[in-house]
């Protein structure tokens, strides 16, 4: 029985895999996406949908800026607006120490040559976030940021790549990878697929795939907890965070409140299970009711957690493999890969088609972990 052949195999049908498939297909490449479950089953489908440049690690700012531009015309890319709303993102200073911290951040970003993050005073902050407790003094504001609907985004990317002729192999994961004379052989259940080029977009499982070709990458699995409330009357537009406490907060167009903040639940990567921790739900509820006291009687309808791969420096791996030039990695997005996804695909397509990218990728190279050891 001869193995099925494809030019490029992408392992993982999360947003990074789908976006990579999209850009490669647009550049005329034959692509097969291998997804163990269904597209968006994990982080990409269950995240908070935050489209945020605000507060990014300096290394990520160039990518986030490029991605932001793509979000503002996301319909051109995937024929759907993905529920993207440029409502802005706001980090609230709850006291003067917070404000000093945010001011230092704003200065640092400005010194790097960017002007997307600006300090706003108490009055401006209150106008953006009505109902915030009286002690809050100001904030750091990023207009043009916002949020999108994760599931809808996944569907839009999925539909678009199908339209572009990308093939899918759903329901079984890659269990082994072997080097062949001209490329790679991937084992998927009982079947084999051969491919000239392989791209590892396996999210929290990315280091398992890397290990299959002998590349060791430290990666932790986190279960990030989210809560959503019943519908409540509209009162706020921007996505809000806090300068020194864990919170990510927004009101959806339906009126539900979406509450996150990277509180950790229980993760079982092998079983594909993530569960919220009730204690963290309580901490999260306490934070929300302290920041927005008028919300105390709003009821939580559902909490969930999503699995995410976290690197030691909390930066993703976007890199050719160090063992072989026809193998590439894009995983470990460390809780903020949703916003980056449109540009990650473009970068991967450039790496493969042009051998280089015009964005600075040095901080994301896979070698950095072994470098550190030396």
């Amino acid at each position: 029985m001869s193995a099925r052949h494809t030019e490029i195999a992408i392992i993982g049908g999360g947003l990074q895999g789908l976006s990579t498939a999209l850009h490669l297909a647009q550049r005329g490449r034959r692509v097969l996406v291998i997804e163990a479950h269904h597209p968006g089953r994990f982080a990409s489908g269950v995240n908070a949908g935050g489209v945020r440049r605000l507060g990014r690690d300096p290394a990520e700012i160039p990518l986030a800026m490029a991605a932001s531009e793509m979000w503002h015309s996301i319909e051109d890319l995937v024929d759907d607006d993905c529920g993207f709303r440029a409502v802005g993102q706001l980090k609230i200073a709850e006291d003067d120490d917070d404000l000093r911290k945010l001011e230092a951040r704003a200065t640092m970003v400005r010194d790097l040559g960017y002007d997307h993050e600006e300090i706003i005073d108490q009055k401006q902050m209150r106008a953006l976030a009505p109902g915030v407790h009286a002690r809050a003094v100001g904030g750091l504001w990023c207009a043009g940021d916002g949020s999108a609907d994760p599931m809808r985004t996944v569907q839009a990317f999925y539909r678009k790549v199908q339209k572009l002729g990308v093939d899918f192999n759903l329901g079984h994961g890659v269990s082994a990878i072997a080097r062949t004379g001209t490329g790679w052989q991937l084992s998927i259940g009982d079947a084999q697929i051969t491919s000239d080029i392989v791209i590892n977009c396996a999210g929290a499982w990315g280091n398992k795939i890397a290990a299959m070709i002998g590349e060791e990458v430290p990666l932790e699995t986190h279960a990030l907890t989210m809560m959503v409330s019943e519908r409540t009357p509209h009162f706020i537009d921007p996505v809000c965070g806090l300068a020194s406490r864990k919170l990510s907060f927004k009101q959806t167009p339906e009126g539900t409140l979406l509450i996150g903040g990277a509180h950790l639940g229980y993760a079982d990567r092998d079983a594909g299970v993530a569960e919220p921790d009730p204690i963290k739900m309580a901490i999260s509820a306490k934070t929300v009711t302290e920041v927005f006291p008028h919300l105390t009687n709003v009821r939580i309808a559902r909490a969930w957690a999503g699995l995410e791969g976290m690197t030691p420096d909390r930066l993703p791996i976007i890199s050719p493999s160090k063992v072989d030039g026809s193998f590439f990695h894009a995983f470990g997005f460390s809780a903020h890969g949703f916003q980056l996804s449109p540009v990650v695909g473009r970068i991967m397509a450039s790496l493969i088609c042009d051998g280089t990218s015009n964005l600075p990728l040095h901080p994301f190279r896979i070698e950095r972990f072994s470098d550190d050891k030396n």
Partner: protein
Amino acid sequence: MSEQACDVVVIGAGPAGMRAAVTAANEGLSVTLIDEQTEAGGQIYRAVARVARTRPADLTLLGPEYAAGGDIVLELDAADITVLHGHTVWQISQDGTVWCSDGTKAKSITARFVIMASGAQERPVPVPGWTLPGVMTAGAAQILLKSAAMVPDGPVALYGSGPLLLLVADQLLSAGADIRVVAETTTFKDYLNAAPHLLGALPASKYLKKGIALRRHLKAAGVPIIKAPNGVSIEGTERATGLRIIGKHGQTFEAETILLQQGVVPNTQASWQLRLDHAWHAAQHYWYPTTDRFGATSLANVFIAGDGAGIFGAEAAAAAGALAGLGVAHAAGNISAAARDQKALPFIALHKKAAAIRPLLDHLFPPPAHILVPDDATIICRCEEITAGQVRDAAKLGAPGPNQLKAFLRAGMGPCQGRMCGLSVVEIMARAHGKSPAEIGAYRIRPPLKPLSLAELAAMDDDTPTP
């Protein structure tokens, strides 16, 4: 460290939970019994102690089965059990930590074993117009009667099938309601399918006799019991005004209150949330968690008793409760397997006797197709007002199962987490994809099992340990 720790937490103070709690306590285990109701009794014996105390005459109209519940409640009162009434369980962790709230403050109780006895819920009956004011389930009307002595004003129509339909009609009639019609979905074919199970039901013939007596009593009072195999639609724009029978001789019955009843199904939100193994009941079209005769589940520290593990009725539920109490007592090391098996004998016999009627009932009162897979225009998800047609369309667009629906629709994403639409969604998607419900699967259920206010959550003590 935890707020409270005990050997066993029992969830639900119906016949199964009360009996499980008493049995486990009698075997020397420390037991906490939690129920969201303010008094013990569960569905069938709801408020029985208070009714006996404050309006004893109503015991007669509610019937001897109801009055019998008073005995278990007395046993519960006499036993050394911590009872938390008015506490809703909103999450069960696999390690046996049970998270609940009294409506003002959430808390957790850590137990070596959990016995879930959270009973059944009525099967939602999505027919055209079922979301209009004036329409409710027969069980909801019964709850009002039991706990608040409330009887609907104005004309009443009932629709559906099964023992509870006739029971509620009869209880309401005795309480003075103006019942205009009982419309039944049962068909001649259902009788044929049920006939082979008649012999097996003889040990439980008292239930058969009761059903015949209810029917006779209703008819004697002049209540028409008619056949409505093709379904009904509910008339009215602002609120329900009548029940229209679909069919050649379709009539409309004037009614301000319309009560729907199409049997009860296990309340599986908590068992799904715990990711226990479940199976699909083909005749009655519901999920149930798989258990052994002691209620042991696929998780070693979690047991289930009563209608939550499959619909067998109150007497069987009480017996199953005793069996689960014994099962836990053995698992906890308090009694030997031989002692457990010995003590179990009478309860196994009781369960068998009470359950003997089920195959007959299951086949006589199957949920009809027009309720399982409603027509396109009928709403199935009440929280988000989503129709059966929208679910079909999403299936066609590629949603393989309930959990992928949310990429297309908000079905199941409202506050009830699919408690209302879950079975309809499974059934519709199974048909759309030509698969079995077991292949399609169920909604993933997440905490909280019932909505919980931010204030309640925020009030939870920090020192509760992370399990």
